[in-house]
């Protein structure tokens, strides 16, 4: 068992330092680069918080949808393959539900400010 602070706490502390103390000091193209860097740290924090539950739920949905067991990577490969072969498509309502849930979980980590995501969150109440 590793000691504290947790990875999330460490990354947040670094991001805060960059945002509050470094950002006001720099200019030019580095302003943009620093913003991208802080965004990356924020993304990692979100992933650390959301990924375990998201992956578990995705694995469970996939197993049920496909009727097979396996790792998340293996199951996604099976699903991709079946869609490509036309064995499963949008006429299966559970597929659309699964893809929507999975994609919403990805956006919550990758780009929670993306307008399409915000619109879907609003219209579905979360």
């Amino acid at each position: 068992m590793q000691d504290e602070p947790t990875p999330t706490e460490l990354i947040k502390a670094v991001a805060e330092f960059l945002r509050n103390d470094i950002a006001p000091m720099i200019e030019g193209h580095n302003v943009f680069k620093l913003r991208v860097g802080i965004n990356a740290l924020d993304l990692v924090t979100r992933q650390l918080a959301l990924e375990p539950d998201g992956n578990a739920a995705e694995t469970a949905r996939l197993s049920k949808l496909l009727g097979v067991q396996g790792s998340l990577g293996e199951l996604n490969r099976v699903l991709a393959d079946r869609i490509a072969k036309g064995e499963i498509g949008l006429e299966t309502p559970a597929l659309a539900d699964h893809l929507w849930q999975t994609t919403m979980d990805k956006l919550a980590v990758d780009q929670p400010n993306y307008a399409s995501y915000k619109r879907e969150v609003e219209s579905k109440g979360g």
Partner: protein
Amino acid sequence: MEEELGRCVASWCFGATGVVGAAKLSGGASQDTWTFDIVHPDGNIGAILRRAPPGYGASPARAAGLDAEATLMQLAHDAGLPSPRVMHVLQPRDELGAGFIMQRIEGETIARKILRDAQFAKARPMLARQLGKVVAGIHALPASQLPELRQMTSTKEIADLEREYRSFDWPRPVFELALRWLRDHDPGPPQEVTLVHGDFRHGNLIIGPDGVRAVLDWELAHTGDPMEDLGWICVNSWRFGEIDKPVGGFGSREELFAGYAQAGRRADPDRVMFWEVMGTLRWGVMCCGMMQRFRIGPDHSMERAMIGRRSSETEIDLLRLLASRER
């Protein structure tokens, strides 16, 4: 650089006495763009150099090539379309590599500024219609005058995208669904094959307070289905948050089509929709490609890495297009 440019400019610009203010605007390993002023007794002339530096001759497989770009830009200019005048095509004796020098047109290319700044407030409502007219003019450029370009079809484009996606060996069910949809809805050859700009969107359009001033970057020009250009400019990734205005975040499809019709051409909304799906998937695959280049290529930059995390944006947009949850 100013010395080399000065020598080059003196050979074709009568009265020019030199070059000042040369600055690199953008540049990768194989191509760069410079801005500079030609010093002239009648007043300085703003100019842009677009070139592959000496030693970088070959262009990527999809690229039209710098000579073709120059020809197309000049053709567009001569046809009265908003396009810079090509002042000089580089010769070996210029020792500047391959490429061309064009007139510099003032204005804005950054989408967020075009969509938010007050100085463009009057331009925004007319842009979609204007761009419809402009792209119709591009599609009307006579085939007999075009340089040699790759010919694309929807079927070939689907196959290219699929090959690229499969090369990443990373399963993406939403991309599979989109590929499946594209194969099932492939509209086949268009009634008329025309010149296609290939990258008609924010970043390649110079906008002023008065509207569109120039179309740039013919790197991806080819011949094919003209509706491809109309679909590409509607891709959500170029709306920069203004998702209810499909054309670049500033206008409606109807306005774009009306401008297109005003110039005597008819848009086919179903084909445009097909190309919008294709374009959304294409941008998603390009984001994945950035991730690959970050991991294995020479450009190990944070920005490139983070673009890899934008492919999920195209997944939600593809679901909104193909599996909408709205009732």
